[in-house]
C-alpha cells in the first residue's frame, strides 16, 4: 500500500499530464481515458453520419412476425415489440442524440458566449438587465426549465427534427456559458493592453475578436463538450417521459419508455442496449471534456 505522505509527484489521470514529449505521448498516454473518450466521440459521429449506410435495416420498418426476437445473426441486438431491428434503431438513436445534443449545446454555448461577452463589455443598464436575466434563468433547475419550454412551445418539426426541443434544451445552457464567458471577459477587459488598444483607436469589435476571443476559446470548448453530454442526457430523460422526441423517430430515451420495462422481464436486451448506449456516449464526452480542460488549463484542478 502506498504511503500517502510520500513526496513523489503523482501522475494521476485527473490532475496532471506527465512530462512526456510528443503529441501521442502527451495527450494519449498521458490521458488515456480522455483519449478513449475522444476515440469514442469520433466513432459516434462517424456512425451517426453513416447510419443510413451502416444500418442493416430501416429503423422504421416493422415486422410483426419477428417481434421481440432475441439477438441473433440476422438481428444483432434483437428486435423490439414492432419487430424493428434494435441495432439499427440504436444507430439511428445515436444520430438523434448527437444531432440534438450537439445542436442544443452549440446553440446554447454560442449564444451564451456572446451574451456573456456583451454583458462584460457593454456597460450600463443593459449589462444589469442581462445579469438579472441570467440570474433568473440560473435559479431554475435545468430539466425543469427545459420542461417548461417544452410545455409552452409545443412541437415544431422541421425535416423530422424538433426545433423546439433543441431550443428547450439550449436555453438552460445559455446562462451557464454566459456566466463563465462574462467572468473571463471581465478579467481580460481589465488588462492593460485592451485599454491600450482602445487608446490607439481600434474599433470595439476588433478588440473583442482579436483579444478576448483567443482567451475565451478554451473555456468555450470545454463547456461545449460538457454540455453536449448534459444535453444528450436531458433529451433521453425528456423522451423517456414522453415529452421529448416522439415516435417514430428513434431515440434511446424513447426506447426505454412506456411498456419497455414490462417486456424487459422476458426480453432484457430491449432496455439494456439503449441504456448502455447513453452511458457510453455520456462517458465519452465527460472523459474527453476533462482531458480537454486539463490540457488547456493545467492549473485548474479536476473538480467539475
Amino acid at each position, binding site marked *: 500500500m502506498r504511503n500517502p505522505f510520500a513526496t513523489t509527484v503523482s501522475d494521476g489521470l485527473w490532475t496532471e499530464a506527465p512530462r512526456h514529449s510528443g503529441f501521442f505521448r502527451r495527450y494519449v498516454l498521458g490521458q488515456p481515458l480522455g483519449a478513449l473518450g475522444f476515440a469514442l466521440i469520433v466513432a459516434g459521429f462517424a456512425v451517426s453520419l453513416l447510419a443510413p449506410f451502416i444500418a442493416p435495416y430501416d429503423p*422504421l*420498418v*416493422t415486422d*410483426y*412476425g419477428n*417481434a*421481440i426476437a432475441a439477438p441473433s445473426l440476422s438481428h444483432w441486438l434483437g428486435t423490439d*415489440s*414492432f*419487430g424493428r431491428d434494435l441495432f439499427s434503431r440504436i444507430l439511428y438513436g445515436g444520430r438523434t442524440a448527437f444531432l440534438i445534443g450537439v445542436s442544443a449545446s452549440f446553440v446554447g454555448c454560442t449564444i451564451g458566449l456572446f451574451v456573456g461577452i456583451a454583458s462584460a463589455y457593454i456597460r450600463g443598464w443593459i449589462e444589469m438587465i442581462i445579469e438579472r436575466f441570467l440570474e433568473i434563468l440560473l435559479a431554475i433547475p435545468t430539466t425543469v426549465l427545459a420542461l417548461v419550454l417544452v410545455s409552452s412551445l*409545443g*412541437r415544431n*418539426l422541421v425535416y423530422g427534427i424538433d426545433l423546439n426541443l433543441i431550443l428547450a434544451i439550449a436555453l438552460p445552457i445559455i446562462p451557464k456559458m454566459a456566466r463563465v464567458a462574462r467572468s473571463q471577459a471581465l478579467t481580460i477587459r481589465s488588462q492593460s493592453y485592451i485599454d491600450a488598444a482602445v487608446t490607439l483607436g481600434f474599433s470595439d469589435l476588433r478588440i473583442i475578436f482579436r483579444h478576448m476571443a483567443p482567451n475565451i476559446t478554451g473555456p468555450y470548448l470545454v463547456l461545449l463538450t460538457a454540455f453536449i453530454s448534459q444535453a444528450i442526457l436531458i433529451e433521453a430523460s425528456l423522451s423517456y417521459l*414522453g*415529452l421529448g422526441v*416522439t*415516435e*417514430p423517430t428513434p431515440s434511446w430515451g424513447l426506447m426505454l*419508455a*412506456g*411498456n*419497455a*420495462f*414490462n*417486456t424487459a*422481464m*422476458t426480453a432484457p436486451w430491449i432496455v439494456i442496449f439503449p441504456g448502455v448506449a447513453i452511458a457510453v456516449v455520456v462517458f465519452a464526452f465527460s472523459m474527453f471534456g476533462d482531458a480537454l480542460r486539463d490540457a488547456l488549463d493545467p492549473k485548474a484542478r479536476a473538480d467539475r
Partner: protein
Amino acid sequence: MTLRKNLMMALAAGALLVSAAGGTRAEDAAPKVGGILRYAVSDDPANFDCHSANHFAALMRLAPHYSTLLRFKPGAYPEIEGDLAESWQADPASLTYTFKIRPGVKFHDGTDLSAKDVATTYERLTFPPDGVVSERLEAFRQIEKIEAVDDHTVRFKLKEWDTSVLGTFASPWNCVYSAALLASDPTYPKEKVMGSGPFVFSDFAAGSVWTSTKFDGYFRKGQPYLDGLESYTMEGPAVVNAIQAGQIHTDFRGVSPAGADRLKQSLGDKVAIESGPSLTHFLVTFNSEKPPFNDERVRRALNLAIDRWGGAKGLGKTTEMRYAGGIFLPGGQFAATEEELNKMPGFGTDIEAARAEARKLLKEAGQENLSFDLTVRNGPPIVVDFGIFLVDQWRQIGVNARNVVVETPPWAAALSEGSFTAIVDIYSALREEPTEQMTKYVSHDVSARSAGRFTDRELDKLWHDQALETDPAKRKALLRAFETRLYEKSYSLPVVWLERTVAMNAALKGWTFNPSNFLYLDQSSTWLDE
C-alpha cells in the same frame, strides 16, 4: 383462421385460463366476508362528480359509493336488473317508463332515499342547470319529462320510443345523488362523495390512495363482502410490478399482453388472467371539409390501403390491438358477420387488389403523391403505436403520411376546432348499444361526439330509424346499410379493436369480466378468498 374462430378460441382460452387458475364465478363458491381490496387506478379524478366525469379511472373510484336506477347484473353480462329499482314497466303506447323504487334504501349520511332523489338526479342529467356539466347529455335527449309520482315511483316520459334509453338507466355514470343536498348546492357532488352505494368514502390523498369502508346499511343484505377498498394511483409497468409483488390485487382496466405473460410466468396459478374483446376501438378521422379529404375517392383509397385483417394479426402478437372490426364489437350481437364485412370497402380479404384499387382512385383524384399530417395523441403509448401502423399501411400505396404526435390538450383542441387533416381517435363504448355507438359516426351537427366535419343525411336517417326499430332482423339490416355507406364514404374509419386482459390475484373473486372498462366497478359482489 376466421375472425369468429379467433374470437371463439380467445374466449375458450380465456375460460380455460380462468378455470386452470382456480378462479370461479360468484355462484360457484360461497363468498367469504372480510378483507381489503387493493387495486390500481391510472389517474386521479379531476373532481368527484360522476355526471361530468368521462374517464374510467374516475368511475373506478366513484362507483362503489353510489347506486344507480338499474344496473348490469353481476355474473350475467349483458343482462340488466334493478339496482335502486325493484321493478319497472315499459309502456310504448304512452311512451313511459315507470320504476318502483325499493323501500328502505339509505344514504351514507343516514337519510332515506326516495323517488325524489332519483327524479332530481335525472333532472340534473337531462336538463343540467348552470355550472353543472352533464357529460353524456345526448344519451338523455329522448327524455321529455321526469316525474316523482310518489315516494317510491318515478315516471319518465319519452319523445320517441327508443329502447336504448333502458340501457341509459343502467349506466354506471348516472349516480343517484341526494336531492336535499343538491337543493342546497347543485355542484356539491364535485367536492363531496355521498351516495347509497356499498362503500362509504373515507379519504383521498391526491396522487396517492383513495380509501373507503363497508357501508353497513347497504340495501343488499349480506353485501358488500369486503371490509373496505384502497385504490392507488399508478400506471404502466409499476402496476404489473405491484401485482407481481402482491401489493395490489389487480387493475380493473387491464394489463398489456407482455405484462400478463410476465405475471403468468412469475406467479403461476396465484394469478387469474381473463382476456376478451374490449369495447374500445381505434379510428382515424379525416377532415371532410378540407382538401384533399373533401374528395371521397381519396378517403376511400386510404380506407382500402389498410390491411385490417393482416394488421390485427401482426399487431395482436405484441399489443392489445387484436381484432379487426367495424363500428360494432367484433363477434358481438350487432356486428356484421365476417362474410358481410368482407364485402365492405376496407374489409376485403384480398389486400393486394384493394391496394391496387386504392392507387387507381388516388390517380383519378390527381393525388398520386399525397402527403399529409396525421395528428396522433401522445398517450397512452398504444395510440402512438397505432399511428405508426397507419403510416406504415399508407406507405404501401405511396402515400407519405407524417406522424405528428401532440399532447392531449392540443389534440383535443384540434379535434373540436376541426383544425386537423387526419386525426387518430379512441372510442370506449359503455355497452353494446348501436344507438350510442353510432353517435361517433353520424353528422357533425347531429352529434357532438362525431369529429369528421361532414354532413350525411342518409347516415343520420339510418341511425334515427334503427333506434326506433323493434324488429331485430330489420334493425340489423339498417345497421348493415349504415356500415356499408360509412365505409364507402370513408369519413371516419374504425380500424382495430382492443383486447382486454385483466390480471387478478387468484384470491379475488366475484368480479364479472366484460368488454367494457366501465361496468361492475362498484365491488358489491367481489370478495377475497384469503
